[in-house]
C-alpha cells in the first residue's frame, strides 16, 4: 500500500489506523486509531484495563495486532518485533522494566548492539564514553560502569530512556513511568521528557494520572474498554471532560439489595504496613459489603494482606468483633474467622495441578479428616456441595483445576474460602479475567453471602463493579484511606476524584 503523502501527514511521526487486538476472552483493542506528531508529547489515558499498555506494546512490537496498521513517518510497519522496533527508533520504557540488574549501565544501554573492536570484542571504552555522553544529554549523573541493581527506580528509568536514545530515537513510549517515583524524581523526569520533545522526539505517555497529563502533555487520547473515546488538545479540555471520557459507559449489572447491617465485625484504625500501607482506617459490619477503591498502587491489596496476616503490621490496630488481633500468619487469620481470596488466582489462589475437591479442601484439611486421617468421602461430599451451591461447571470433583474455565476457577476459589465458614471475607479483584456470565453469578453469590450476615471487603479496580457491589466505598490513595462514599449514590467521577486527589494538586508536582 502506498501512502499518498500530504503536507499534514509529513508532520505525523506515528499513525495508528483501526488497530484490533484480542486476547483469549478479552477484546483488548477495538478499532483504535490515533496519531502522534513530531516532537509531541501525547498522553494515552484510561482506567486500568482500558487497553493503554496493550496499545503501547503493539506500537513497540511487543504484541502483534490482529488487524490494522501502524505508520512511522509515513511508512507502514509490517509485523515487527521489539528488536526491529528498536532499530527503527521506537523505544518502550515498560512498567516492569527491561534491564538486567547484574549488568552495568553501559552494558544495558548497548544491549545487543554494543560498539565492537576486532573479533567481535565489545569496545568497553567506547560504550562507556557514549553512555556517559547520553547521560550528559539527559542531564543526569549516572556512572556507566555502575551495576543496574545499585540504581534507584528513577535512575533505572533514565537508563531505560538512554537505552532508547542509543539508537536514533524517533518515538519513546513510557508506560506509567511515575508509578514508583517520588515527586522530585517525577519533576526531573518531566524535564528530561520536555527536552527530548524539543529535540524532535515524539513521546507517548501512558498514564491514568490526570494531573500529570495537564502538566506535561500536548494532546491526550482517551481509551475505554479498548476503544478510543476521544482525542483532545490538553489546553482545550478539562479534568471533568477527561473523566467522563474515561468512565462514560453503560452499567451492565443491577445493584444488589442492601441488608440492614449488624454489629461491627472488622475495625481497622490507622493501620500501617511498610512499605506501601501508611494510614488505613475503616470498618465493616456484618451483612455489609465494603469496597476498597483506588488506583493501582494505592495499597489496597497490601492493606488486605496486612489484615490477613500475610505481612506484619508496622502500626495501628485491627479489631475483629471488638477484640484486638495480631496474626502471626494467614493460619491465625483463618482460625479467627477471616478468609481472603487473593488477586491472582493462578499465582496465589489455586493449585492448578490438583483436583477440584483438593482445591476446595485446602483451607479445611482438618475439617475433612478424622483423627488426622483424611476422609476422601468427606472431601468428595464437601466438593459436591459447593459444586452445586455455586453452580460450578466441572465434569467431576476429580477434574484438574487447570482444565476449568476462568469463571469456574474463580468459583472454586470462592468455594475454597467459603469452606472454612468465615465471618469476614476479603475478596481481591473478584472478577478479573472472568466472562460476563460468571461475573453476574459471582455478584449474586456475594449478595447471598451478605444476606447471610457475612462481612465482605471487596478490592476492585473496576469502577462499575464497585458501584454495583458496594454498600460503602472506602477510597485509598498513596497508602492512605482518603474518603468514604455511600455505594448507592456514589458516581464513578466522585470515586476517581477522591482516588486522584493527591495528584490533582498541580502545585504538588511542580515542586
Amino acid at each position, binding site marked *: 500500500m502506498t501512502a499518498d503523502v500530504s503536507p499534514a501527514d509529513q508532520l505525523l511521526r506515528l499513525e495508528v489506523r483501526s488497530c484490533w487486538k484480542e*486476547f*483469549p*476472552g*478479552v477484546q*483488548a483493542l477495538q478499532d483504535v486509531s490515533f496519531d502522534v506528531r513530531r516532537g509531541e508529547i501525547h498522553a494515552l489515558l484510561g482506567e*486500568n*484495563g*482500558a*487497553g*493503554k*499498555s*496493550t496499545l503501547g506494546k503493539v506500537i513497540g512490537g511487543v*504484541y502483534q495486532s490482529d488487524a490494522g496498521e501502524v505508520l512511522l513517518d509515513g511508512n507502514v510497519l509490517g509485523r515487527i518485533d521489539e528488536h526491529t522496533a528498536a532499530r527503527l527508533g521506537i523505544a518502550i520504557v515498560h*512498567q516492569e522494566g527491561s534491564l538486567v540488574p547484574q549488568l552495568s549501565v553501559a552494558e544495558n544501554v548497548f544491549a545487543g548492539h554494543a560498539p565492537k573492536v576486532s573479533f567481535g570484542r565489545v569496545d568497553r571504552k567506547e560504550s562507556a564514553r557514549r553512555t556517559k555522553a547520553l547521560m550528559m544529554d539527559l542531564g543526569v549523573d549516572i556512572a556507566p560502569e555502575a551495576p543496574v541493581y545499585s540504581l534507584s527506580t528513577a535512575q533505572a528509568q533514565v537508563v531505560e530512556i538512554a537505552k532508547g536514545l542509543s539508537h536514533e530515537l524517533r518515538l519513546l513510549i513510557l508506560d*506509567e513511568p511515575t508509578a514508583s517515583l517520588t515527586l522530585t524524581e517525577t519533576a526531573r523526569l518531566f524535564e528530561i521528557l520536555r527536552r527530548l520533545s524539543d529535540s524532535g522526539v515524539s513521546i507517548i505517555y501512558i498514564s491514568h494520572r490526570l494531573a500529570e497529563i495537564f502538566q506535561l502533555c500536548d494532546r491526550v487520547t482517551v481509551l475505554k474498554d479498548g476503544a478510543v473515546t476521544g482525542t483532545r488538545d490538553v489546553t482545550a479540555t478539562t479534568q471533568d471532560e477527561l473523566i467522563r471520557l474515561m468512565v462514560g459507559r453503560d452499567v451492565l449489572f443491577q445493584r444488589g439489595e442492601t441488608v440492614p447491617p449488624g454489629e461491627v465485625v472488622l475495625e481497622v484504625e490507622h493501620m500501617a504496613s511498610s512499605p506501601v500501607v501508611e494510614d488505613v482506617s475503616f470498618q465493616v459490619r456484618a451483612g455489609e459489603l465494603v469496597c476498597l477503591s483506588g488506583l*493501582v498502587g494505592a495499597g489496597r491489596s497490601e492493606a488486605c494482606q496486612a489484615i*490477613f496476616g*500475610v505481612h506484619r503490621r508496622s502500626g495501628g490496630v485491627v479489631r475483629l468483633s471488638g477484640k484486638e488481633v495480631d496474626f502471626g*500468619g*494467614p*493460619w491465625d*487469620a*483463618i*482460625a479467627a474467622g477471616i478468609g*481472603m481470596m*487473593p*488477586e*491472582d488466582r*493462578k*499465582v*496465589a*489462589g*489455586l*493449585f*492448578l*495441578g*490438583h483436583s477440584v475437591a*483438593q482445591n476446595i479442601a*485446602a*483451607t479445611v*484439611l*482438618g475439617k475433612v*479428616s478424622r483423627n*488426622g*486421617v*483424611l476422609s476422601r468421602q468427606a472431601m468428595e461430599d464437601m466438593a459436591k456441595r459447593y459444586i452445586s451451591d455455586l453452580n460450578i461447571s*466441572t*465434569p*467431576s470433583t476429580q*477434574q484438574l483445576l*487447570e*482444565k*476449568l*474455565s*476462568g469463571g469456574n*476457577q474463580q468459583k472454586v476459589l470462592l468455594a*475454597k474460602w467459603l469452606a472454612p465458614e468465615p465471618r469476614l471475607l476479603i475478596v481481591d479483584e473478584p472478577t*478479573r*479475567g472472568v466472562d460476563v456470565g460468571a461475573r453476574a453469578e459471582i455478584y449474586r453469590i456475594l449478595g447471598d453471602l451478605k444476606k447471610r450476615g457475612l462481612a465482605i471487603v471487596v478490592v476492585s*479496580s473496576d469502577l462499575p463493579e464497585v458501584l454495583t457491589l458496594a454498600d460503602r466505598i472506602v477510597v485509598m490513595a498513596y497508602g492512605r484511606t482518603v474518603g468514604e462514599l455511600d455505594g448507592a449514590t456514589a458516581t464513578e467521577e466522585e470515586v476517581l476524584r477522591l482516588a486522584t486527589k493527591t495528584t490533582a494538586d498541580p502545585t504538588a508536582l511542580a515542586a
Partner: protein
Amino acid sequence: MTGSAVGPSAAVPSVPSAPHAPAQKRDSLLSRILVTLAESRELTLFVLIVILVVAMTVLYPNNFPTESNISAILLNAAQNGILVTGMMLLFIAGFFDLSVGSILALSGVWAGVVVAQWGYPAPVGILVGCTVGILAGAFNGFLVTRVGINALITTLGTLAIFRGLTYVTAGTGVTPIGDEFKTYGQTDFLGLQSPFWVMLAIVVVMAWAVSRTAFFRQYYFIGGNARAAQLSGIRVARLTFTAFVLMGFLAGVAGVLGAARLNSAVVSAGIGVELSVITAAVLGGASLRGGEGSIIGGVLGVLFIALVSNAMIINGIGVFWQPIVTGTVLLLAVSLDRFRRSRRA
C-alpha cells in the same frame, strides 16, 4: 492493563478434553488396563519389575530366584529404600536434599565412636547416630527456610560440610564397633536381615501417612503452589523445615543400620547415594516442580534400580554398563511423561 492475566500464553482450555469426558462409558478391559497403566507411574514401574523378575527367573533359573540372591537384592535396597521415603516427601514439597549420603556417613561414624571409643551401650550409639541425622537435617531446613538459600545450594554446601565433619570425627573410620551393636544390623528374620525389616516398617508407615493423613497431605499443596498454600493457611516454612528434619533422621537411621550391618563405620559410606536416590524418586513419579509423586512410587524406583543392577551382574554385562542403563531408563520414563502431557494438553 495492569497485571491482568491476559496475554497469548494465558489461553486456558475451557472445555474439558473430550477423551476423558464420558468416564462412565465401558471401554474394553484391555484398553482400560492400558490407560490406567499409562496414567500411573507406580503401576508402570510395578509391571516393569514383574516383567524383569519373570524374565530373569526364566533366563537364569539357577542364579536369580535363589534365596541368597533375593535376600541380597532386598538387603541392598534397604538403605536407598529408607532414604527415598524422605526424598520423595521433599520432592512432593518441591525440594530435595543432596547431602543425604554425607548425613548417613556422619551418623554412622558418630554411632561407632560413641560405642567403640567411648564405651557406651549400643542403644545409646543408635540414639546418638539418629540425633546427629536430625541435627544435620535441621541445619539444612534452617538454611532453606530461615536464611532463604535454595535447596540445591544449601545441600550442595552441607554435602561437603557433613562429609568433612565425618572425616574430622573418625579419620579413617571405626572398625570393629562391637558385637552388641552389630546384632542390630545382622539379625535374621525369615531369612532376611534387620535393615530390610526396618526399611519395610518405615516404608509402610510413610506410605500410609503421606497418602492418608491431613498433615502430610499439606506437602502436596506446598509443592503445587507454595504461595497459594501459604495464603490458604498452610505453614509452609515450618512444614518444609520438618521435611528436612525427617530426611535427616531417615539418613541417620540408614547410616546407623549400615554401620551395624558391617560392624564398621566407614567414612566413605554413602558417597554418590544422593544421585541414585533422586534417580529412584524421579523414576517413581517425582517431579522437580513438586506437587506430585508417592512414597510407593519412590520405593518401586529403588527396587527397579536394584533389580536392574542385579540382572546385569548375573548375566555378566559388567558393572560399567549399569549407570548407562539406569540413566537411559530414567530419561525414557521422563520423556514418556512429557509426551503424554503434551498430547493431553
